[in-house]
């Protein structure tokens, strides 16, 4: 590995880790703010920072910062009968696995350095790279392609499975080593839940792998970019994967290992201070990584509809409507932003789920896992295989029709996205309607007097 490769790897790690860490922190905030939005409340907004005498509230974004600082200075605790080593190790494992997981997730298309380096200052206007084909690798002079993933592994998705399976070890040994019955039960639940849903998680992707014909995550995205997004070719697998991913994240309705009303705090009941902070944080980081995988597998990764490596190409079947070449720099930037944008949206959706659903009971969870999700994913594999075989043998007319259908799905994505953006903007600018439901006279009087007044505390 040359120095420049090393530097690039460091840069990629920083981007990815920075993104996961920051998004996880923001998610803790989004979780609280969004819940208050659903529940007609305001949510945390008081943490204020004073800069040159001016107060900045930043809509409560500083609350996660306060949480983090507090975790660091909170007294640490080790149960006297705990297994010291495992107790210390558990949060590290829980956190570490999440970050290992993201190393194989591509966050952009391969960057061809030989497009950039020779014409260094003018990279913004340089020509587009060809849509297909790879860049020439001339490592000595620094002209080599850079895969925008931390570890461009050939086994891609298999590594993801391996690592996501390890995440539970943190929870399991945390519960085991805590010397607490609630923790132990939490750990047992976590382990069994993980085993059950890991199977579905893997099975649901086999169909997708058959279609994509690869286990490399970046190749999967390329296939989706060229054809149709995974959600269209494998709709059932998408929902199975989504469900299983939420279950792996241990969030409501699958938060049995830490079910507050049953097991106090589940497997991390005995953890305090920063160790608890790591578990707390790892949970949100898992949401981010789960969303990343979902985006990569089923939502086209870094790809936008009709945008390819060389630029914008709107084509239906054989008919090309628009063909526009865009410089490589802009395409790369667009890809990266698209990927992170998609991840944020999926995280946001996951947060929505949390606040409304009750949680499962243990046996119901197992039933759902083994009797519904697993057979469904097996059926999905079977159907996918048969359909794939039939279509493969069908002849060129069918292939053309499929081609057109794939392009139409891309168009559909564009339409849906535009509609959502339009609705969002309209909602944003719509006049705000206040409804007052004050009944008592004291509230009325307070309202007449201009609400509560800020007076100095007299205590």
């Amino acid at each position, binding site marked *: 590995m040359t120095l420049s490769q090393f530097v690039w790897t460091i840069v990629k790690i920083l981007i990815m880790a920075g993104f996961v860490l920051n998004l996880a922190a923001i998610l803790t905030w989004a979780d609280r703010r969004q819940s208050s939005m659903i529940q007609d409340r305001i949510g945390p907004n008081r943490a204020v920072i004073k800069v040159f005498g001016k107060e900045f509230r930043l809509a409560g974004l500083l609350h996660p910062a306060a949480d983090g600082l507090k975790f660091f200075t909170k007294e640490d605790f080790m149960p006297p009968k705990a297994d010291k080593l495992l107790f210390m190790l558990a949060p590290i494992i829980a956190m570490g696995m999440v970050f290992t997981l993201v190393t194989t997730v591509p966050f952009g298309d391969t960057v061809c350095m030989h497009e950039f380096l020779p014409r260094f200052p003018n990279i913004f206007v340089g020509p587009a790279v060809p849509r297909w084909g790879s860049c020439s690798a001339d490592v000595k002079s620094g002209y080599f392609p850079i895969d925008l993933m931390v570890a461009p592994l050939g086994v891609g998705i298999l590594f993801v499975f391996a690592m996501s399976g390890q995440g539970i070890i943190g929870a399991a040994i945390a519960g085991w080593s805590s010397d607490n019955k609630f923790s132990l*039960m939490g750990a047992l639940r976590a382990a069994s839940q993980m085993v059950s849903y890991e199977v579905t998680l893997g099975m649901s992707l086999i169909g997708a792998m058959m279609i994509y014909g690869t286990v490399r995550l970046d190749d999967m995205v390329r296939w989706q970019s060229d054809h149709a997004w995974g959600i269209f070719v494998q709709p059932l697998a998408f929902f199975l994967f989504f469900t299983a991913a939420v279950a792996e994240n241990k969030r409501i309705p699958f*938060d049995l290992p830490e079910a507050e009303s049953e097991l106090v705090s589940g497997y991390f009941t005995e953890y305090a201070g920063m160790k608890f902070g790591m578990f707390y944080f790892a949970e949100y980081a898992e949401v981010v990584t789960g969303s990343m995988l979902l985006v990569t597998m089923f939502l086209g990764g870094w790809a936008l509809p009709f945008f390819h490596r060389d630029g914008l190409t709107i084509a239906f079947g054989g008919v090309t409507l628009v063909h526009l070449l865009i410089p490589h720099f802009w395409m790369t930037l667009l890809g990266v932003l698209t990927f992170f944008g998609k991840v944020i949206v999926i995280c946001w959706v996951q947060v929505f789920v949390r606040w409304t659903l*009750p949680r499962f*009971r243990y046996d*119901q969870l197992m039933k759902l896992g083994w009797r519904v999700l697993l057979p469904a994913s097996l059926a999905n594999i079977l159907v996918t295989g048969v359909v794939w075989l039939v279509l493969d043998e069908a002849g060129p007319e069918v292939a053309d029709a499929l081609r057109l259908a794939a392009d139409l799905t891309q168009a559909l994505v564009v339409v849906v996205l535009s509609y959502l953006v339009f609705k969002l903007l309209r909602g944003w600018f719509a006049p705000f309607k206040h409804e007052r439901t004050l009944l*008592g006279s004291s509230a009325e009087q307070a309202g007449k007097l201009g609400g509560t007044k800020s007076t100095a505390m007299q205590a």
Partner: protein
Amino acid sequence: MEPLDIDLDEGELELPADPMHLNMGPSHPAMHGTVRIVLELSGETIVKADVQVGYLHRGFEKMCERGTWAQVFPYVDRLNYVSPMLNNVGYALAVEKLCGIAVPERCQWYRMALGELARISDHLTCNGAMAMELGAFTPFLWFVKAREMVWDILEEETGARLTHSFGRIGGMANPPTADFKAMCGMAVGKILGLVEEGEKMLLKNRIFIDRLQNVGPISGAEAVSLGWTGPCLRSTGIAYDIRKAHPYLKYDEVDFDVPVGTRGDTLDRFLCRLGEIRQSKRIIEQCIERMPDEGPINSDDPRVVLPGKTDVYTTIEGTIQHFKLIMEGAKVPAGEVYSYTEGGNGELGYYLVSDGSGTPYRVRIRPPCFQITGGLHRLIEGRMLADIVPTFGALNMIGGECDH
């Protein structure tokens, strides 16, 4: 050296097979802070449960023996603190039964309307809290929002959000405010709107239904033999509602139904409470329609009812009467009485013993949820740990009432 081929049949490999003992509560999130359940678990299944109450025993009955008859009202408020007005009215009715006095018609309607408002607040809290403990936080907040509307009215009428101390022997502390009817009329519709919204969110949710259905079922006969009353008994199909069976106040003149369940499981209890909110709305609407706008609110019996302030300040009789009633308390005739009303959880009974002085000799409350909690272990034994949460939530154990 030990032989390598140990015969596994003979080698006694004894793993500890004792069931795990788990101590839930009293400060466990699902135990409302006042109940402790010592569980014997086999895996996640409950083998044996020992329910222990008494963590909120506040000596209600002993305290009542220290003040006058009227000074019991504040204590009564804090028994079932989710629907204090029902307790107030129940106690007032009990003392009035012992004194042999009747309150004016307007007061009876007023008591009914306030009581039914309190019942709505009780059921909203119970159902909402249960949903929250199952993990659905949002419906709980919507129900609390609806409850705030009830409390707004009660605050306007009584001056306190929660602990009103509004009942008096022979009437109420104050007549209804001018806006009472308007406020009730406005609020009940809005409350029902919020309830329906929450209901939609919960009852169309398969997970929620699965968590409640067939959890903690009990047969009607068993529930009766355990002494259950109220929504928990009615969920088994036995329509024992004191408002219908032995009407007090004006309940025989209003038109309402008694929602009953069929299986007596947790879902039935949940639905019964939702049904009762609707019936309470009907009762309130009839009350505000039929309550006269004019007329006395208090009985005119000078032995128990405080004179008006004008009389106290201007006439010697008024001053003396006021002094005697405040300092010595109303002299309630000697005897014993058991009076029962329909509280938020069931039959709320007061057994009073008077020795003819101004102080109660014995005030015994018959809290509905004491016996209901006494049957809890029958519902959860043999079920899973997670079933405790909805089962216990739907019983609506109120610590103050259960532990006296």
